[in-house]
């Protein structure tokens, strides 16, 4: 059964299926969610709060997401290309859209190693 992330405020409610979230990027006290259909949603949550909600509301699917530094949560299945030397992380959504993100070299080294370990 698909798990859902539900973000509710006093004025509205946003539901995101576990496989819809491509990545989330911090913007101060706000976070932008980028979804599989290309939709971008700004929510009034800090990234840490969103991380907790993902862990609570999607206990199984959450293990498919990785927090990268202070600014990113990324769906592991979306990762297409990692280049720690350039600090470059490239994601693809199911529709084929490409997203180029930046992160620290050390964090991307760790991500690369983690993905390599998963091969063994």
């Amino acid at each position, binding site marked *: 059964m698909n798990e859902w992330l539900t973000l509710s405020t006093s004025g509205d409610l946003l539901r995101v299926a576990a496989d819809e979230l491509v990545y989330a990027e911090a913007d101060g006290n706000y976070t932008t969610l980028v979804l599989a259909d290309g939709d971008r949603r700004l929510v009034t949550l800090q990234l840490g709060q969103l991380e907790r909600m993902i862990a609570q509301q999607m206990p199984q699917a959450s293990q498919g997401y*990785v927090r990268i530094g202070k600014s990113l949560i990324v769906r592991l299945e979306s990762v297409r290309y990692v280049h720690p030397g350039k600090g470059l992380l490239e994601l693809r959504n199911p529709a084929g859209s490409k997203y180029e993100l930046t992160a620290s070299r050390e964090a991307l080294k760790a991500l690369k190693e983690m993905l390599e370990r998963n091969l063994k």
Partner: protein
Amino acid sequence: MKEIDDNEIRIIGASDGGRRHRWPWYGWLAVGLVLAALVAVAVAVLLLQTPREEENIGLTPAPLQRRGDLPASDRVGFPSPSERGRGEASSLRVFDTMINDVPLTIYSLDCELPACPRASLQVGMPEREDTSLLLAVMAADVRADNRGIVGDFVVDGRQLARGEKKDGYCAILDGVPVVGRGGESDLKRAVDGKGSFFRQYVLVSEGVAMPPKPKGKNHRRALCVMGHRMFVVASGDRESYHDFATALADLGVDDAIALVGSESLLMYRAEGGLLHTIGTSYEGDNVNFLVWRR
């Protein structure tokens, strides 16, 4: 959940946090250099027990930066221009936040003063068909008994009411609003310069919450200034003035005055040109609005 730094990653929800951290070689080098510098400073202080005044300059701590000194965008986290809120794209942004468990809705003009849409004060309801209207909020209180406007009230240079009991004010000259306390000189400018002026309670002054005396809880609204931004804030729940003013100060607002609260009418033009109305239309004498138009 533990904090994370920019060099770390972790699998969300993993029992051990899936934490992966690599301490870079230059990190150890930096620690070594810092320790060496600390030892050198300590030796220097011991040897020079009475240093000359100019030698102390480098050790004088920098003055603490007030939250109010930060740019507005660093304080409230306004959405970036590329992000859309619920309001009219590139003109008005409407978004929710929560401060001290006080839910707030912020109606922010997407501009920095004074280069903003023109503001005006008017008696009577704004025209719903007015497609230039961006945001309209009820401004000065009107007495329930005699329908008189409370406090000094000037529209286009004509003074329609007098009274200084409420210390906060908003003055509008050439379509640019200012907010503050006192305001005698700005009142005179408004009269002389065919501007507008109204009084309300002060909620925040120079970054400090100054809740007015009236007790009780109600839906609150405020006209706020933060750096070069001006915006209207509405509480999502019934709040005391104390909690509302404290939340605004904690939000980082520099100055704020109250607006008519409770279920008073607020209108804003949403994306696509749709006019949203919130609250109740209080028809009657002297109902007045602060209005921003494109």
